[in-house]
């Protein structure tokens, strides 16, 4: 009886400890993001207050200033948003087409030095953005495509292709070979078999690869900060720096822009989270 009780107590203590640890961990994950969201709705006076004000008041001042255009120290957020959107969407579409064909090659064909090719392609993804931005800056300046959407799109396509290959390779591998063989027996060409049979099956996986590529472009800073110069091509991560002056920072405005940046990313993630994990692990484990 006594031992039973002790045992039960220990289990209960473990359960409480488990819950508490989990709670602390989740708080650490959530609070920084929530703090940003909260502060985007607080007036600047309150953010700067010393001693701190703990009961938040609500204002849309920062959002009004942000969307109010370039006046009153506002940042041309609409242009940045548009640039980000154009660059991310176009580069993702191209990267997916190119990456998909590469991933298909790795999943369906046997050739010499396959593992070598694969690692080789991945290595190009490993080149640090800053290190690449130096020569890319010089080359693009010579070609006159600095400060254009085209230049940035080109850079992002190259950046996203290797990882897209990794993901799509994993998804195509999951599809049994018999599927396209059957289609070919029924008179499809390989091309038709791919678009009519294999592509629809792998579609959700390819969508998640696309979102991964989109987020990479959407969030990229190291290259964008050097390859863009003006309102015509700056993306949002670069625009975030517009809120910092030499010694002062417009915290509230920055928070508002940050929220604008996170929201699309979060929505997209919610949609594909399941496929995303499957893609990463299948591509890796069953390589």
């Amino acid at each position: 009886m006594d031992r039973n009780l002790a045992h039960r107590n220990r289990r209960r203590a473990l359960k409480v400890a488990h819950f508490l640890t989990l709670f602390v961990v989740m708080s650490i994950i959530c609070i920084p993001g929530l703090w940003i969201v909260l502060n985007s709705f607080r007036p600047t006076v309150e953010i700067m207050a010393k001693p701190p004000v703990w009961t938040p008041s609500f204002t849309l001042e920062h959002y009004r200033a942000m969307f109010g255009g370039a006046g009153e120290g506002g940042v041309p957020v609409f242009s940045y948003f548009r640039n980000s959107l154009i660059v991310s969407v176009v580069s993702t579409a191209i990267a997916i087409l190119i990456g998909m064909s590469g991933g298909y090659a790795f999943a369906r064909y046997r050739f010499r030095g396959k593992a070598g090719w694969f690692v080789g392609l991945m290595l190009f993804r490993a080149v640090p953005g800053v290190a690449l931005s130096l020569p890319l800056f010089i080359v693009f300046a010579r070609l006159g495509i600095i400060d254009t959407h085209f230049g940035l799109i080109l850079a992002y396509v190259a950046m996203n292709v290797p990882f897209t290959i990794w993901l799509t390779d994993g998804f195509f591998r999951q599809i049994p070979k018999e599927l396209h063989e059957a289609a070919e027996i029924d008179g499809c060409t390989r091309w038709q078999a791919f678009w009519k049979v294999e592509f629809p099956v792998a579609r959700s996986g390819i969508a998640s690869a696309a979102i991964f590529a989109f987020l990479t472009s959407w969030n990229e800073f190291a290259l964008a900060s050097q390859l863009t110069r003006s309102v015509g091509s700056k993306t949002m991560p670069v625009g975030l720096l517009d809120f910092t002056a030499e010694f002062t920072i417009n915290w509230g405005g920055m928070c508002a822009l940050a929220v604008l940046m996170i929201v699309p990313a979060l929505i997209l993630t919610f949609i594909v989270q399941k496929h995303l994990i499957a893609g990463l692990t299948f591509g890796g484990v069953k390589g």
Partner: protein
Amino acid sequence: MFRRRLPEWFVLLLPAILVIAAVVLIPLLFSLYSSFTPYRLTRPSSLWRWVGTANYERILTDAKFWSAFGRTVLFLTIVLNLELVFGLGIALLVNKVTWGQRTLRTVLMFPMMFSPILVGFQFKFIFNDNVGLVNNVLQSTGISDAALPWLVDEKLAMFSIMFAEIWMSTSVFAILILAGLFAMPRDPLEAAKVDGCTAFQTFRHITLPFLMPFIFIAMTIRSLDVARAYDIVQIMTGGGPARRTELLWTLMARTGYVDARMGLANAMGYVSILLSIVFTVYFFRKLSAARAELGMGG
């Protein structure tokens, strides 16, 4: 008609190879060349003067470079190890949860979707010595009377940067390890229980070996973009104050863009590229070894 047909796989890979060659390989070859010249952006003619390995000799004897290099390696070692440990811990915690697990998993993915630049800004705000959340809490609760100089003091600044980096990247490990835990077969676990293994033994000899490939996938993915830390450091401290948080990447950017010494910066760039490649190749090899061990190859 004696046109040799290219093999199909090569045709399929060709666009990828072309675009990578054009955007990454050629600029890298150019930067390799320019790392042997005293190239300055302000004096284009200096591109044609060959100085051999002078740039490399210069950075190899430069104390500032070595301290940045050492700090980078130290930073990566600490950060990657802690991320792995925390990720494993979080995955095990979440795996035990019976109610609301899906929600927790979604929450876990939040930091993955934050732009590194955003993470940097977010923690610059939170660790700000004047209006930051951390100091406000510390002072309001009376733990500390004076404002702690989180981003100014050398040790505190490194801690803040590491905290930001770990906050951002631990979820990659947690999510992938959790996927591994879900995929784990039940039979060996039950057999171990029947044979009288303790919880720790079961974890050490059954769970962990099974998770290894997943850990290496996470490591490989992480090693592909360790340089993202540049965004964080750049916005949080800019490598300062007085180079106290200078990493290889911020030093390189400063040399290239602020001092306009492209040749020298490219030489540093090559050192950083080499560092990334060593990391990536190492983990890829580990990954295929772990796969082969579990019979998942082929």
